[in-house]
C-alpha cells in the first residue's frame, strides 16, 4: 500500500459491500479498531468532523442503526439532522428525489439513507452532491452491518480468512445476508446458509455459498453462527405455518449450538425475536456476542464517516 492510495476509500459513497475490494474493507476495519478506544474515554468526542453536516434520512423504522449512526456522528463532532418518513413531507407524497434535492439545497456533506426500496441509495448517489451512506435499502444491502459483523468476528476469532460461518433464517428478505455474503467471500471465509425452502431465494448458490434447508447441516463444526431475524412485516403470504413451527425447525437452541465448534460465537443483527429464530438462553449465553456487535457498530460507523469525509470529493463516483 502506498500512502497515495492505501489510506483512503476509492469511493465517494458507501452504497454496498459489493463495489468494495478487500483492501478497502480491511482499511475500514483497521480504522474502526482505532475508533473503538474513543468510546472508552471519559470525554467520548474528537473534533474531526467539526462543521460537517450529516442528514440521517430514515424511511423505515430503525432503532439500532439510526442511534448507532447518530452516536458515531456526535463522537466525531459532526452536526446531524434526523428525518424519518413519519415526520417528513414523504407523508404528503413527496418523492425521495425531491426530498433529497431539497435537503441538498441546505448543503449537507453526507446523507445516511435507510429506505424500503432496493437501489434507493444508488438513486440518490446519482442525483446528489453529498456522500451517500446506505443504511439498508430493501432486500439489497446493509453494508455497515456486514462491516460491524466482520469487525466482531475478527475481534473474537482473530481472523476472517478460513472461518466457517453459518447464516440461518430468513434468507429471502435479508439485506444483512447479502452484504455479509459479499464481504465474507472477499475476505476468504466459508459460508453455509440455511432456512425454510420458502425463504431461500433462487440462485443463492451463485453467490458462492453452500445452501441447505436443514439447520443441523449448516451448524456442523462452524466457528460463527449468525442468526437472521424473521421479518414478519415483510411476509406477504405465509412462508411457514407458525412461529412455533419455525422455532422447532430453525430456532437456535443450546442443543443445536453443540453441533458448532466448542468455541463458536453467536451473532444476531437485531432486533431479535426471542423464541422464534433464537432461544433466550442462547441469546443471553456466554457464546453470544450480540451486544459486542452493537458496541462495535459505533466504531465501524465512525470509521466509515471519517474515511468518506476525506479524499478528493467526486474523483471516483460510487
Amino acid at each position: 500500500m502506498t500512502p497515495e492510495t492505501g489510506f483512503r476509500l476509492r469511493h465517494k459513497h458507501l452504497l454496498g459491500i459489493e463495489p468494495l475490494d478487500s483492501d478497502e474493507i480491511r482499511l475500514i476495519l483497521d480504522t474502526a479498531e482505532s475508533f473503538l478506544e474513543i468510546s472508552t474515554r471519559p470525554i467520548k468526542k474528537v473534533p474531526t468532523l467539526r462543521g460537517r453536516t450529516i442528514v440521517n434520512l430514515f424511511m423505515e423504522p430503525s432503532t439500532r442503526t439510526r442511534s448507532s449512526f447518530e452516536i458515531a456522528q456526535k463522537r466525531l463532532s459532526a452536526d446531524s439532522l434526523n428525518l424519518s418518513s413519519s415526520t417528513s413531507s414523504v407523508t404528503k407524497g413527496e418523492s425521495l428525489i425531491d426530498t433529497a434535492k431539497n435537503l441538498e439545497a441546505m448543503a449537507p456533506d453526507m446523507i445516511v439513507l435507510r429506505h424500503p426500496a432496493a437501489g434507493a441509495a444508488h438513486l440518490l448517489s446519482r442525483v446528489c452532491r453529498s456522500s451517500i451512506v446506505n443504511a439498508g435499502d430493501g432486500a439489497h444491502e446493509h453494508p455497515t452491518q456486514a462491516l460491524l459483523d466482520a469487525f466482531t468476528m475478527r475481534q473474537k476469532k482473530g481472523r476472517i480468512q478460513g472461518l466457517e460461518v453459518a447464516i440461518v433464517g430468513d434468507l429471502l428478505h435479508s439485506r444483512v445476508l447479502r452484504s455479509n455474503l459479499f464481504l465474507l467471500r472477499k475476505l476468504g471465509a466459508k459460508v453455509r446458509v440455511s432456512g425454510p425452502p420458502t425463504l431461500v431465494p433462487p440462485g443463492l448458490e451463485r453467490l458462492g455459498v453452500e445452501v441447505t434447508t436443514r439447520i443441523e447441516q449448516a451448524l456442523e463444526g462452524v466457528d460463527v453462527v449468525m442468526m437472521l431475524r424473521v421479518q414478519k412485516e415483510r411476509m406477504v403470504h405465509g412462508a411457514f405455518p407458525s412461529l412455533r413451527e419455525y422455532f422447532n425447525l430453525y430456532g437456535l437452541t443450546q442443543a443445536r449450538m453443540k453441533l458448532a465448534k466448542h468455541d463458536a460465537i453467536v451473532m444476531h443483527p437485531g432486533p431479535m425475536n426471542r423464541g422464534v429464530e433464537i432461544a433466550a438462553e442462547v441469546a443471553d449465553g456466554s457464546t453470544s456476542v450480540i451486544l459486542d456487535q452493537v458496541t462495535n457498530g459505533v466504531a465501524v460507523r465512525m470509521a466509515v464517516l471519517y474515511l468518506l469525509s476525506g479524499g478528493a470529493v467526486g474523483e471516483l463516483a460510487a
Partner: protein
Amino acid sequence: MPSTNDALVMDEGKIERTLTRMAHEILEKNRDLERLVLVGIRTRGVPLAERLASRIREIEKVEIPVGVLDITLYRDDATTIGPHALLKATHIHFPIDGKKIILVDDVLFTGRTIRAALDGIIDFGRPNCIQLAVLVDRGHRELPIRADYVGKNLPTAREESVEVHLKEEDGRDEVHIVRAGITSRKGEPAAREKSQE
C-alpha cells in the same frame, strides 16, 4: 543517501548522548517522579518517549508510564486535505488528572502538531502541567508554542525538510536536512511535522 542535497546532522552516537542529556534535564526540572508521565506523539515521538523512560529508569530506578497519542483526529487540516493519514490508536492507559506530562515528538516545526496533541491530551483529563520535549527544533513556528527540552536547535530554510530516522521505525538512528524538493528515499515517511505544513 549522501548527496549535496542531503546533510547528516545527527548520527547514532549524537542522538544517544542527546537523549541522555534530555533525560537528565527532565529529572532536574521535575523532582516529583510519582506524578511524571511521558506521552509520545505517533509515529516517532513514541520510540523517543520510550528511550527517555528507559534512561530515567537507569538513572533513578523508577518506572515512568509511557502513553501513545495519535493526533490524526485533532489535526486542523483533517477535513481539508485529500486522503487521510492512516489512523492508529491512542493508548493512554493511566489517569492523567494531576499528572506532569512530558509530551515527546521528533521535530518541532510549525507547532500545529503540538496544538493538536494538547487538544488530544485535554480530552483525557486535566493534567497538572504539560511540558514539551523534542529531538529537533527547526524553527518556523506558526503558533505560540515552544519546547521545554530541545535535543538540537537546527536552523533551517522553510523549503528544506528535516528527516528523523529511528531504529525502531526505520532501522537506523539519523537526522538529515534535505534540500528543497528532494526526499532522501522515495516513499519513505519523513518527520511528522513536515506533513503538517
